[in-house]
């Protein structure tokens, strides 16, 4: 796979456009790169952002990367061949600094510093010139003062190192720790552990195929919230609850679910994978009177 762009070393696995790199943190699949989040959304995988937003980190209304994926979402992406599953091992405590990389980083910083200081100087000059142009009609003395300042800029401009702007990378930038510390996971690491998880995946896949968008529905007492369009613009219509076909549901639970759906104005959808491999059966609950 060819490396694209700057900073990516040759062995970066997921630099193909159209493929996302799903990185596992403990056992949760996460997407770190902005491009990956966008690609995933184009295939209908919404996920939940769970990090601080770079622009305003101290609020909870809008969060930033990483995007947390459901197991079903990661599995869907992997099955469609659009995802590479990665897991990193923690660095050994006896590891030593890699002098080559440190030198590279240092050079990068120095380069950035010199460029920024040039830019700062040009910026200041531009400001002075603009002031001069505005004061064309002004007195000679102020004009002279400005000329002097311009000259002073050329000779004695200082840009302190602490004023340099530095980027704090969100996603891992290239291969700073060597390829042996990234492990490629096989797709069956996402395979379902029990019948319920299998039911969830089947339902997810089917609903996705029908064009619905799905997000997590724990707060509403169900497995998924089903949206008719992109969750950014539309409200959810259904609360999907996934059950294996032969699992018994007591009447109390049924009543509780209906009541819940009525209270939040969403329809409760009981979903079960059928006998056929691609078949999923749906039952919706509506609370109505006997009048």
């Amino acid at each position, binding site marked *: 796979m060819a490396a694209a762009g700057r900073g990516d070393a040759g062995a970066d696995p997921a630099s193909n456009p159209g493929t996302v790199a799903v990185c596992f943190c403990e056992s949760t699949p996460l997407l770190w790169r902005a491009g990956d989040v966008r690609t995933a959304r184009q295939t209908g995988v919404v996920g939940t952002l769970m990090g601080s937003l770079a622009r305003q980190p101290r609020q909870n209304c809008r969060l930033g*990367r990483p995007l947390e994926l459901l197991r079903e979402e990661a599995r869907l992406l992997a099955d469609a061949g659009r995802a590479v599953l990665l897991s990193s091992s923690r660095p050994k405590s006896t590891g030593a600094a890699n002098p080559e990389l440190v030198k590279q980083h240092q050079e990068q910083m120095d380069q950035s510093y010199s*460029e920024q200081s040039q830019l700062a100087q040009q910026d200041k000059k531009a400001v002075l010139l603009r002031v001069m142009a505005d004061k064309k009609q002004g007195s000679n003395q102020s004009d002279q003062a400005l000329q002097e300042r311009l000259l002073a800029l050329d000779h004695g401009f200082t840009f302190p190192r602490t004023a340099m702007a530095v980027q704090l*990378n969100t*996603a891992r930038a290239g291969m700073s720790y060597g390829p042996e510390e990234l492990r490629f996971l096989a797709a069956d690491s996402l395979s379902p552990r029990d019948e319920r998880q299998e039911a969830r995946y089947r339902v997810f896949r089917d609903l996705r195929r029908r064009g619905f968008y799905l997000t997590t529905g724990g707060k509403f007492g169900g497995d998924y919230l089903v949206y008719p369009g992109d969750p950014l613009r539309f409200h959810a219509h259904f609360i999907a609850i996934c059950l294996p076909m032969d699992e018994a549901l007591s009447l109390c639970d049924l009543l509780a679910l209906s009541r819940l759906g009525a209270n939040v104005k969403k329809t409760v959808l009981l979903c079960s994978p059928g006998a056929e491999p691609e078949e999923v059966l749906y039952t919706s609950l509506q609370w109505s009177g006997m009048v």
Partner: protein
Amino acid sequence: MAESNTSVSCSSDNFYSELLSPSELFAARSRSHKIPARGQKEFLPDGSARQRERLQQSLEEHWSLISEERVERLGALVKGEWIPSKNVVVLKSPAGKFWQTMGFSEHGKQLLLPEEALYLMECGSVQVFLHDLPLSIQEGYEMFLSKDTVNLQQYQVFSHLKRLGYVVSRFDRSTVPSHYERQLNLPPERDGHGRQLKRKRSRSPSSQLPDGQGGVAGESLEMRGGETKSQRANPEDGAAGLSEPEAERMVEDVPVPSGVPERRWWVEGGADLPQSPTRPRHRGWVWETITLPDLGAHRCQPALAAPDPSLLPGRLSVGVCAMEPWLRRLNLRPERLSRRERERERSRYRRDVNDDREVRHCRSWAEYHELRRRRRNRHGRRNRPEHLWEGKVTPLLQPGQHTTAGDVLDKIGVVGASRLLDGAAGLEDSEGWKISFDVFQPDTVAEFKKSSPGKPYSRLCVCSFEGPVPDLRVLKQLAFQSGDVPVTFAVVDHGDISFYCFKDFQLPTDTSH
């Protein structure tokens, strides 16, 4: 590995490289810090162009927000270094404003816990290095979060609350005062340095006895020792000095190897304390050997022997204590009571239960109970008609026995009131349920002191919807661990967090008593 070429400026349509060029970094200084408000959502997609357009606009806004990278001035960043072996970040430059509520000092260095460091990295306040290379947020997540530190779900709750302004710190069981300590209402410990990592309950000094195995743990001994100390400090009556410790004084029967040296507290002049190394002794204070002479008794020693100099601080030495002047201060005059008072004493107050002949005939507690029951029955017989009380079904109450309505309700109640902490003391730790964090309110941040944070607003237990709902046993155990601070359950559902708490509730009764 391909050489990285850093001076080529990257075109913005290449999403796979997120590194900013120096010109972009410079331009980022004047970035806006405002977040655009989200518009109203629509109900149904109708395929119209207008909806499509609005969706595109929302999406573009969304992408621009989340693809923004953090850019900070180098002078505003605090430099830190990750130490994998100790799971802490040590600060290499002085800490900023966050030091008021986060971090701790050790050996003169400023340290941050991994979740605090990760949160500060996300805020753009701290840049953490490992092997002289800066860590990205992704690497921070992958390295700092683990089973030994905090896991991803706990970190989600932590950062959620921190973003709202709360002060969140790790829960340390040993800082919770026990019920007895709260009753005593002691002033809080003044710990000059450090926080959770340093503050552990100190072992009682007597735990330095050389026996290694067995024995009651120091903590519980303190607790139980405190509660039973009042019983043990009974002055011995009879002959002073010599004490024959009764078997009933022994509360804990803990096997301890018999090589334990016996301490003598308050060495008597020449008195020999019974040596019984085979009798089980508990670790710590040897209660039977502590004698408190009864100085008010008729035959008491004229003088108390000097204490063992090894027990005194420094080079203090104390001589023999003469009792004569002290006894003179005791009021030993015989009481002169009126006839009526004497009568009352004889009948009510000073009647020794052992004077009763029938009681002396009892050979065991069971017989004594039987005797009392018989006497009670005899007295009550005048009020208890046989047809009511001798049948299979008897009345619940005896008339005249209870006078207030509340009393009556109590007596006839079938289900007794219980509180959450009933029976909670003896429960062992449940699998998987533990309190993770202490939470303090945001408006206390101005006066918050890390060394004495005070009582938290709540304590958090992090769980998920995939796990079981906490049952009564777990609730009791966690409420007991938390002391008098309510426990809140933070349920994490793939990025969404909900908070639940269980409140103790008393059913109202109709009468006030």
